[in-house]
């Protein structure tokens, strides 16, 4: 059947499809046992991101009394065979207010690197807890990783509330425990929602099974959480990514510096400084995807033209003269290590920071952090696969850095193995000391 285009339903759908929305990036952590896949399947299904043929395939494959929504999210054959999630999977759904990109990450300790990957781009993290089990070691780990990556919003979904008879006491116990734990970490916004992913309670709409719960449903919270204040609009940081030189007759003298705004707001007429040269000049114009723009802010991809003809190349950074990041060759960072071969002092690595790539040597592994207890092991001396610890690096050339807590873009870097070219670590800069 052709879709009737002039039905009220079609017109409504059309209006929703064309509405201006923003994007919320979500990371979920939890194990299969917590019902994570079921919860995601529920969000996708109830927000109508699941199509008929996908649902029918899942219906056919389901054993038992319920359609197993978890099957919607299993991607690779090995995952289906082993009944586990190995890698980060990305899911997409939208509501009239927002579109959502959800990084679905496995919860086991051996997949810490995948969780770090999923959380790296997230505005919000959902940590899933089984109401019968309460806050487990892995819940602490997931919460800690969200705070380490500075995910600004955390939601704890207390799942399987139906199996504890929707007990308010159980919910409050878990909520209080999480609140106490979050206070010790950098978690500016914590919300705890009681749900049953299997039955859909409090996932999309408020459930009458939890009259004592005054908060919003999970989806309502995702739609309304305030993220506009999460970005840094103060410190102008523009890493030069690519130099645009048309070398054509029509644009003979055009020389533009293309890149993605890391933070701050840039406007034509602003006095700026280019690092590492330290020379100052003025922004002549900013070209966006549809021509000149009056201002540029993160994460816009633009091309900046300067009034003076300076020697600017990829890896340079444009900032304001009175607010420049500090050039650093000694980097103190929390590092998440992602490969079998351990990170050890004197090891040589490549550091990619914004658009600048330099070589570095590991000076010191100051401590390894137990991601479950947050205990610092000062005697570790190295970091193994999935370990997190504080590391000092010395780079061959200066990088223009900010603390990760202040700037998630100029405070981060990845580590690349010089022999294998693999990405082996992720770093978040911390104040020295």
């Amino acid at each position, binding site marked *: 059947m*052709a*879709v*009737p*285009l002039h039905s009220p339903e*079609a017109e409504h*759908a*059309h209006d*929703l*499809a*064309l*509405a*201006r929305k*923003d*994007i919320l990036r979500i990371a979920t952590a939890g194990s299969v046992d917590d019902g994570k896949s079921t919860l995601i399947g529920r969000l996708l299904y109830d927000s109508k991101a699941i*199509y*008929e*043929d*996908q649902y029918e395939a899942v219906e056919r494959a389901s054993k038992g009394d319920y359609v197993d929504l978890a099957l919607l999210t*299993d*991607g*690779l054959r090995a995952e289906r065979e082993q009944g586990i999630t190995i890698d*980060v*999977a*990305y*899911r997409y759904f939208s509501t009239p207010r927002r579109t959502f*990109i959800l990084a679905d990450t496995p919860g086991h300790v051996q997949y810490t*690197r*995948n969780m770090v*990957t999923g959380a790296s*781009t997230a505005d919000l993290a959902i940590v899933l807890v089984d109401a019968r089990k309460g806050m487990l070691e892995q819940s602490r780990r997931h919460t800690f990783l969200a705070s380490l990556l500075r995910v600004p919003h955390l939601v704890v979904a207390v799942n399987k509330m139906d199996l504890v008879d929707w007990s308010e006491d159980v919910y409050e116990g878990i909520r209080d425990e999480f609140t106490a734990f979050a206070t010790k970490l950098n978690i500016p916004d914590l919300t705890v929602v009681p749900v049953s992913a299997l039955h859909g309670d409090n996932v999309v709409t408020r459930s009458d099974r939890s009259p004592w719960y005054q908060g919003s449903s999970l989806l309502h919270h995702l739609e309304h959480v305030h993220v*506009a204040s999460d970005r840094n609009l103060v410190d102008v940081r523009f890493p030069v*990514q*690519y130099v*645009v030189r048309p*070398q*054509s007759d029509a644009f003979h003298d*055009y020389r533009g510096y293309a*890149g*993605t705004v890391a933070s701050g707001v840039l406007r*034509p007429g602003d006095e700026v400084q280019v690092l590492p040269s330290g020379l100052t000049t003025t922004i002549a114009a900013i070209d*966006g*995807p549809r*021509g*000149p723009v*009056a201002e540029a*802010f993160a*994460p*816009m*991809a633009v091309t900046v033209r300067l009034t003076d003809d300076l020697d600017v190349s990829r890896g340079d950074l444009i900032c304001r003269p009175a607010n420049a990041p500090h050039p650093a060759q000694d980097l103190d960072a929390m590092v998440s290590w*992602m490969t079998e071969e351990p990170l050890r002092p004197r090891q040589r690595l490549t550091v*990619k920071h914004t*658009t600048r790539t330099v070589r570095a040597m590991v000076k010191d592994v100051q401590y390894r952090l137990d991601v479950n207890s947050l205990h610092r092991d000062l005697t570790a001396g190295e970091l193994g696969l999935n370990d997190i610890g504080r590391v000092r690096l010395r780079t061959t050339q200066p990088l223009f850095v900010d603390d990760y807590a202040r700037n*998630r*873009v100029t405070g*981060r870097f*990845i580590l690349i193995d010089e022999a294998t*070219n*693999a*990405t082996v670590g*992720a770093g978040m800069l911390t104040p020295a000391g």
Partner: protein
Amino acid sequence: MPDTVRGILPEPVRLVLVQVLSPTSGAERVPTPDYRLSQLETLEAESIHVIREVAAELERPVLLFSGGKDSIVMLELARKAFAPARIPFPVMHVDTGLNFPDVLEFRDKRVAELGVQLIVASVPDAIAAGTVKEEPNGSRNRIQTPVLLDAVEEHGFTALFGGARRDEDKARAKERVFSFRDEFGQWDPKNQRPELWDLYNGRIHLGESIRVFPLSNWTELDIWQYVLREEIEIPALYLAQEREVVERQGMLYAVNEFIRPKDGEQVRRETVRYRTVGDANLTAAVLSEATTVEEVIAEIAVTRMTERGATRGDDKVSDAAMEDRKKEGYF
């Protein structure tokens, strides 16, 4: 029916959109009070960032261009990434010899407008040369992979832009934006490079390559909204038109040079459009009344069948069909 169409809106609707989407014309842009980008602007910025990063870091990139809507949008984003300079890499079409003529015409026109070099990797030539063999089912989907890999080797390409989206398939949902391939072009799903923030790792050894998917985070609806918003030309096949069709396994195939009615098949006239444009012998059309891009969006918004499931005979083989083809080097 014109060869190409533009996402032009009737005037009253257009006025509303100007307010909602605030496209820029000149520097007189109304300041965005909350400094938030819409989902299309965010996706656009992310894709442009990816495309520039590849051009800056990898020696010989090439953009896979089929004339389908996703690759059209990807090419438009590449144009924007380097404007007013030309796109600094060539485009390549893996030509199965089973194309819709409109699509080929569109391909050539677009490439000429942008002044980019077009490289055609021909499957019929490879069949003639004996480097690949025609499969008994008539599908050239598998055999285009070796043709692609040979062309990559011949030209020494180190990065290949593809228009795949993660919302298309379960295996694609797990693929990186920068997807590392060994010297045989193979994907190892269990051993992918971690991909953090927007810090992409394009480092490779000789013979290895990176598949790059700038549209990873776009959905089908995003693509259509962008076509509408940016008034991007697309082949007319994407819009509904009355065509002669035959029904095979519940799917409608328009009669064309590659699809002839078999014995016992009834030819009937239906108003149909294509949701995806693959090989002309395998791509089915869907019943539709949508004759403008806006109507396509309305249709998609209420449709409850996935793109590939609805129209691609080649993905029906098994649940893991895409995963298997990708491991061999398919896009």
